[in-house]
C-alpha cells in the first residue's frame, strides 16, 4: 500500500508576531515547523505502516528549498521517501495554485492508495488544499478524520462534526484530511535524524518535471487577490454583566445578539 502524506512547513504561530503597519507576518527569527495537522496525518500513515507489512509512506511538500528541513523531520519520524516540489513558478500560490501543483506531483508519483493531508495549515487556516487535490484527481475525500481503520481495500473513517460524527466507508484510492484528535504524533528518533540527513533523501521536483499546467501556478495562476491584510484594532469599552435568572439572561442575550445581527 502506498500512502502519500502532503505536508506544509509553516512558521510556528505560537511565536509569530504581526507587523502592525503592513499587516503581514513577521517571519524573521520565527522557527519553522511541520504544520500540526499534517503531523497527525503523517503519524496515522506511520501507524498503518507499523501495523501492516508492505506499506510505503511518502511525504510530499510544495515550498521553497528551506522546506527540506520539514521533509527531513518527516523522514526522521519514519517516512520512507520525501519529495519537494520547488520552483520559482510556484511562488505566490494561493490554495488553487498549490493544489494544482500538488495534484501534478501526485500524478507524477502515480501509484497511491491513500493521500493524507492535514485539515488546515496554521498560517492560512483555509482547509481548502486537501479537498481541492481530491477534486483535481477525481478521488473520493473524507475530511476531519478523527479515527481510521483499514479493511482490505477500504478505509473506514470517523469524520468529526461540530455536534457528532459520521462513519464513512470508502474504497481506495481516497483522500483524507486529519485533525489533531486522530492521534498523538511521535517524535523523530535521534537515529532517524541522522539517517534522514544523508544525501539524496529528499528529491526536488520542478514544475516542468511534474508537467503542471503553468497557467494555474504561482501568483499569476492564483484566482485569490489579497487587497489588504490588517490587524483589527483592540476593542475598547468595558463589558456588561447581565443580571437575572439563567433563563432571563439567555433570553436577553439572544435578543441583543439578534439586534446586532450577530445571529
Amino acid at each position: 500500500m502506498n500512502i502519500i502524506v502532503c505536508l506544509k512547513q509553516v512558521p510556528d504561530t505560537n511565536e509569530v508576531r504581526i507587523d502592525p503597519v503592513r499587516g503581514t507576518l513577521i517571519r524573521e527569527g520565527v522557527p519553522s515547523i511541520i504544520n500540526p495537522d499534517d503531523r497527525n496525518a503523517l503519524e496515522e500513515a506511520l501507524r498503518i505502516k507499523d501495523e501492516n507489512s508492505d506499506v510505503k509512506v511518502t511525504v510530499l511538500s510544495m515550498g521553497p528549498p528551506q522546506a527540506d528541513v520539514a521533509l527531513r523531520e518527516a523522514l526522521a519520524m519514519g517516512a520512507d521517501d520525501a519529495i519537494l516540489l520547488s520552483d520559482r513558478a510556484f511562488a505566490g500560490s494561493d490554495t488553487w495554485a498549490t493544489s494544482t501543483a500538488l495534484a501534478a506531483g501526485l500524478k507524477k508519483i502515480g501509484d497511491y492508495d491513500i493521500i493524507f493531508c492535514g485539515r488546515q495549515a496554521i498560517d492560512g487556516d483555509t482547509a481548502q488544499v486537501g479537498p481541492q487535490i481530491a477534486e483535481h484527481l477525481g478521488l473520493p475525500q473524507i475530511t476531519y478524520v478523527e479515527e481510521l481503520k483499514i479493511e482490505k481495500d477500504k478505509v473506514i473513517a470517523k469524520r468529526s462534526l461540530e455536534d457528532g460524527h459520521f462513519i464513512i466507508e470508502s474504497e481506495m484510492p481516497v483522500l483524507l484530511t486529519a485533525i489533531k484528535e486522530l492521534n498523538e504524533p511521535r517524535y523523530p528518533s535521534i537515529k532517524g535524524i541522522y539517517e534522514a540527513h544523508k544525501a539524496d533523501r529528499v528529491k526536488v521536483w520542478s514544475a516542468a518535471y511534474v508537467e503542471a499546467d503553468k497557467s494555474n501556478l504561482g501568483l499569476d495562476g492564483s484566482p485569490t487577490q489579497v487587497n489588504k491584510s490588517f490587524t483589527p484594532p483592540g476593542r475598547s469599552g468595558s463589558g456588561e454583566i447581565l443580571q437575572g435568572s439563567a433563563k432571563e439572561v439567555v433570553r436577553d442575550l439572544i435578543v441583543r445578539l439578534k439586534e446586532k445581527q450577530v445571529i
Partner: protein
Amino acid sequence: MNFNLTKEQEMVRSVMKEFTEKEVKPIAAEIDETERFPRETVEKMAKYNMLGIPFPVEYGGSGADEVAYAIAVEELSKACATTGVICSAHTSLGCWPIYKYGSEEQKQKYLVPLAKGEKLGAFGLTEPNAGTDAAGQQTIAILEGDNYILNGSKIFITNGGQADVYIIFAMTDRSKGTRGISAFIVEKDFPGFSIGKIEEKMGIRASATTELIFQECIVPKENLLGKEGEGFKIAMSTLDGGRIGIAAQALGIAAGALDETVKYVKEREQFGRPISKFQGIQWILADLATEIEAARLLVYKAAYNKANNLPYSKEAAMAKLFAAETAMNVTTKCVQLHGGYGYTKDYPVERMMRDAKITEIYEGTSQVQQMVIAANLLK
C-alpha cells in the same frame, strides 16, 4: 572556525526540547519529591534512540556524535537533572567503556542492547575508602578456573539497582598498585551480586544512587573488559568522557534556571512594575547569561574534540569545572531573584539549586578537575 551546529545537531536540539517539555518537565517535581526512578521516561528515551546517541548504528546506537549527545543531556537537564544524569551515566559510563575497550563478542552481547536502551548501564569505581583516590580499590577479583570471584563493595553508584549491566573495577593484583586494577562487565543477576544501601540525597533525588555488594560474586572470565591491569586506564579515560556528560548536565541546569527566572522577573511586580525593569536585576541576569554561554562553548568544544578524535581530557575537565561552578552560581542567584518564592517548592529553582551541587562533586570534584588541568599545564 565555525560555531554553527550541523543540521542534524539543530534537529536533535529541537526534538530534545520538545521531548523534555512534554515528557520530562511535567513529572520533574513529583519524582524529586517522591524519589521515584522515572522508568517510563527511560523507556521513552529508548524508543527514540536517546540512550545510545554517540555510538554507531551497527552497535545499536544512533550514529550521531558527542556534540549531539551533549545537547541531549543539556536539554533534558534544563527541566530535570535526574533524567539528564540517567542518560549521561548510562551512555558515558555504562556504554562507552564497552564501545572503546570491549571485544567484538562483548560489544554484540552488551553494547548493542545497552545502546538501544533495552538495557540500562552503570559504572562502579567509587568505594567507601576510594573516592578521589580511586587507586585505593579494595574490591578484589581472583581468577578461579573459568571465573573471576569478586569480593568487596562500591558506593554512590548512579543507576544502581536500576541498571542491568555494570562496569566494575577490582584489584586483580594488589602488588601492582594502579596497574593491578582490572575492569569487568557484571550483569545484575550474576550470583553473589546484590544492591545495598540506597542513598537519600539532597538533589537528583529520583536518580538511583546505591551501594553494590559483591560476595563471592561469580563473573565469567570472558567478562574481563580489556586486559588484566588495564582497569585504571579504562576508568580514567571513561571519566574523561563522562565529564562532558556531567558538564552538559550542569549547563542544562543553569540554562533551565535562567529560563525560569527570566519568565519570573517579567511577571513579578514590585514598586508598581515588573522587577525585570530594574537595572539591578538586569545586571545580574546579563552576568548569568554570559556565564552560561561561556560554559556552553567549553562543553561543546570538549564534545567536538571527542567527536573528532582530538585530545579532550583537559577540555572536558575545564568544561566540567566551569559548567558545574556556573550551575551552582546561577541557580543560587536565580533563587535569590525569586525572593521568598524561590525558597519554596512552588517554583522549580529550589530543586535546581539542590541538583546543581552534585555537579561540583561527582565524576571528579571541582578540585580533581583542577588537578587534571594543572597536570596538563605542567607536564
